[in-house]
């Protein structure tokens, strides 16, 4: 007894609070606020997140190029979904205008990276570390300009106004040929070039493998940034505005500034996602930025889980992987056509499916895939006991 006590005493000065290891099998025993406030606050979370990242990286070698392209697209959409979740999930400002900000990002990126003096507007700066922040910042600027509406309007009214943005954008992008190439024609998208190395051509690995790894790394960066934001004073202020705005103001949260910030950050994510997404296919068409795209993002957030970063990622993967399945419908069901001029066609089926999924999730699991995961986790925590 005396021995252990004296060693314990001797250890105290050597181990500063927060560095000491946690005893095995006590995942919730925290001995410092650093441990308590960590993003991955249990050993299980650390191990599983590490394994998940390793798995995602190893997929680049295992999967066929076609599947890698789909997944790379899904990762980019996940960045966009995280962005929508910041403004709609955390800050509670319903936005149907996400497609508009994605478009701003896509065209800014394309214009910055496009060849100078070509058929379309271009500045000839193909480096990704130039056009990606540019795409984000220009979209964020538009977000900040739109945000003052959110300080005047709430809920449904805000949704309708942001919906107007999509229509406005659609019109401008269709008419502004020099930037967008016009409807049905389109233009070349941003070129993902990293330190002189064009990632959209086979180099170290195949084009798809390079793009896949790039998008995965960027998704991790954006996701960690969003998680950090969410646990900071800023994320807390967003949630406060969502839950009770008057009380938020009375405890010292300036409502206007934080709503503007939420729109700005969300649009930054959307802009980056827009720039990146079309660099995979290498082509942007102004018709892509319709209400359907906004609805897709909302579906990702609602199906994945409102106000969770991992939920937004799960939702984006779910919706993106749904697409290859619906696109193969015409082979299985001859009534469904792949031609957009025929009714019913695949795209209509997709839209209906998104709507249906949103309804089903809202009715049966409003917390989305994240909620299902929480239920599974708590079930296995107490298994085989039922409580």
């Amino acid at each position, binding site marked *: 007894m005396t021995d252990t006590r004296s060693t314990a005493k001797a250890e105290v000065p050597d181990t500063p609070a927060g560095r000491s290891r946690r005893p095995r099998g006590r995942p919730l025993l925290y001995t410092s606020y650093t441990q308590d406030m960590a993003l991955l606050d249990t050993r299980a979370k650390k191990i599983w997140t590490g394994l998940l990242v390793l798995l995602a990286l190893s997929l680049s070698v295992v999967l066929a190029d076609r599947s890698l392209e789909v997944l790379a697209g899904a990762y980019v959409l996940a960045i966009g979904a995280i962005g929508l979740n910041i403004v709609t999930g955390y800050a509670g400002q319903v936005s149907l205008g996400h497609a508009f900000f994605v478009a701003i990002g896509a065209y800014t990126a394309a214009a910055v990276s496009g060849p100078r003096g070509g058929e379309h507007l271009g500045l000839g700066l193909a480096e990704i570390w130039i056009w990606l922040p540019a795409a984000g910042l220009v979209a964020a600027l538009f977000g900040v300009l739109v945000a003052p509406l959110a300080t005047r309007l709430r809920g449904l009214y805000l949704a309708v106004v942001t919906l107007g943005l999509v229509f406005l954008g659609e019109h401008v992008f269709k008419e502004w040929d020099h930037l967008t190439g016009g409807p049905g024609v389109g233009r070349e998208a941003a070129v993902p070039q990293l330190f002189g190395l064009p990632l959209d051509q086979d180099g170290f690995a195949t084009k798809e493998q390079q793009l896949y790894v790039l998008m995965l790394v960027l998704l991790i960066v954006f996701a960690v940034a969003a998680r950090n934001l969410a646990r900071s004073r800023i994320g*807390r202020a967003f949630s406060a505005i969502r839950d009770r705005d008057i009380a938020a103001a009375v405890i010292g949260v300036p409502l206007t500034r934080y709503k503007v910030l939420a729109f700005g950050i969300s649009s930054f994510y959307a802009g980056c996602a827009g720039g990146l997404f079309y660099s995979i296919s290498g082509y942007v068409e102004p018709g892509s930025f319709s209400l359907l795209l906004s609805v897709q993002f909302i579906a990702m957030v609602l199906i994945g889980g409102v106000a969770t970063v991992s939920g937004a990622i799960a939702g984006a993967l779910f919706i993106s992987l749904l697409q290859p399945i619906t696109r193969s419908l015409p082979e299985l069901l001859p009534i469904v056509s792949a031609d957009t001029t025929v009714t019913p066609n695949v795209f209509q089926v997709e839209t209906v499916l998104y709507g249906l999924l949103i309804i089903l999730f809202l009715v049966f699991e409003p917390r989305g895939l994240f909620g299902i995961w929480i239920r599974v986790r708590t079930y296995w925590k107490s298994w085989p006991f039922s409580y």
Partner: protein
Amino acid sequence: MAVLTVEDVGLSFAGVRAIDGVSFEVGPTELFAVIGPNGAGKTSIFNVLSGVYRPQRGKVVFLETELLGRRPDEIAAMGLARTFQNVELFHNLTVLDNLMLGRHCHFGYGTLSAIAWFGRARRQELEARARIEDIIDFLELAAWRRHPVRLLPYGIQKRVELGRALAMEPRLLLLDEPVAGMNLEETEDMARFVLDIRDELGIPIVLVDHDMGLVMDLADRVLVLDFGRQVALGTPAEVQRDPKVIEAYLGGTA
């Protein structure tokens, strides 16, 4: 020197005079109570003080600064904290996050620092967390630290709301019916907290409540309102003897 000076404040909503020429002062460690029948304008006074309502006339000076015309968040940053009659917590957040939100004004880091969670942001968050833990101890909230607030019993929610106001490190605390709807035991707990806040933390308090026993036992001075007008102002003993107060509460012969 008074912490808060209210001078001849008048607030009306399209002809309804919610507050009509009310004046009072709150001293540096005073426990000041405002009472009156329903609709007397008690909560309206709080809303004026915290910047939610803008009165048409009058002056409100808090720590030698004029309050009228300022936004609620500016007033909060000056050190005026309040609780609400109906619990106004952030229902989806945990007790910890609600209390951390109380410290919003005390953080000094920006968006980029928050995103990187490095240096300033990290240091300040850890420091804030340690401060919050003191409040959790003080209000005996340890058992509910990680619970989402909406799942907590009403009495505990009231206590969390008091904690959120305390986390602001206020220089004046406004409590709007802190014991409304509480049972005897919860009321006594709350009374103990209110006294401790004044005596141990030295924070002056303005208290609104309908529990006359509580108000008369705790308050140093009492302001009585009726239909937005000032009926009486004095120590509990003086106020209780005042015929105009009895008339306002029980109905007069006139």
